[in-house]
């Protein structure tokens, strides 16, 4: 446990921020964005997500001291962009944001599980969930830094 307050919330910001490695993702096609309920759907999803992160025993230490509103705003913009929505987010790189905190593969997977719970609660279809996860997953290379 590091003494410094963790900010794995930015894990999500970056998680979504630099997924453009595979620009094969249909950038003009916003079907996935609409499947997630557009802007208001994403806002509600991220509100629910933050609540679950704080309630999750594994994720709570990463999120209890962060600027939660900032993180949620960034997440909404990032997922919006990734799923073909009209947002453009520019911010620090994933590596920069997570560099100061120790994040293991198990931490990354745990966050994926909490996101899956949120998406289940919002009634998002399994196939749509997997399509989003497919865009988010490669970010593990920049986020997981321990060991």
């Amino acid at each position: 446990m590091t003494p410094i307050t963790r900010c794995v919330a930015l894990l999500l910001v970056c998680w979504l921020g630099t997924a453009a490695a595979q620009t094969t993702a249909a950038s003009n096609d916003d079907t996935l964005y609409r499947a997630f309920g557009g802007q208001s759907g994403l806002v509600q999803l991220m509100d629910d997500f933050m609540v679950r992160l704080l309630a999750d025993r594994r994720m709570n230490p990463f999120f209890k001291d962060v600027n939660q509103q900032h993180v949620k705003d960034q997440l909404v913009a990032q997922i919006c962009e990734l799923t073909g929505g009209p947002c453009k987010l520019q911010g620090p790189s994933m590596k920069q944001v997570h560099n100061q905190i120790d994040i293991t593969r198990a931490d990354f997977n745990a966050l994926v599980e909490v996101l899956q719970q949120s998406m289940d609660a919002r009634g998002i279809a399994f196939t749509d969930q997997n399509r989003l996860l497919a865009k988010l997953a490669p970010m593990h290379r920049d986020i997981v830094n321990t060991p």
Partner: protein
Amino acid sequence: MFRSSILLGLSLATWAAHAGTVQVTVVDRDGRPAPDVVVLIEAPGARAPAAAAPVVPITQEGLRFVPTLTVVSLGSTLRFTNKDAYDHHVRAMPSGPLGGIAPAKTFELRLDAADEAAQQVDEYKPPVPVKRKANPVRSADVKVDQPGPIGLGCHIHSSMRGQVYVSPTPWFGKTDAQGIATIDNVPDGPVQVNLWHGEQLQDQAMQMVQSGAAPAKVSAQLNFTPRRRRS
């Protein structure tokens, strides 16, 4: 004539003798070199030189405070400059692993994004032109007149962490990557070497050393092992 030249020689010798150097080598509890350890030297009874009031730069770049640790003298001015392409809200935070040491000075600065980021923002995306304010405030000064630690944080980016230490004595330094700090101009005589690290739970043991013509070498070991930082 002879006597005055002796007196002159003696006073010259005394002048020269004031340029004592203390070299402190610090390792952590596992025996590895400990960088970023604050070294403070107390010389009781010695006359402090005229206080300098330098302006010490601390930049925000790549979502970090550069340098991460800054040790300054009382009365210095910290100049915070934002070189990143996004805003930072720099603020003073408590120090210590449990956040139990109140900052020696409180402040909150809103620093706007730089025109050109110090580093490339995002290697995956092409740069997007960002709207700039008419009169951006990229830099702000904070004068520190109380000794003690000041933690640095950013209200927006919670992972940004830095440390300032305002030294109560004019003789101070911080250890480099090899765990070595060299402090010059230390007055002659017995001096006290104190160490401080932002993650320590207990005070480090103090050491006395004799400062004089020959450089005084001090070896110290921290009572804990700090978290290793990634570059």
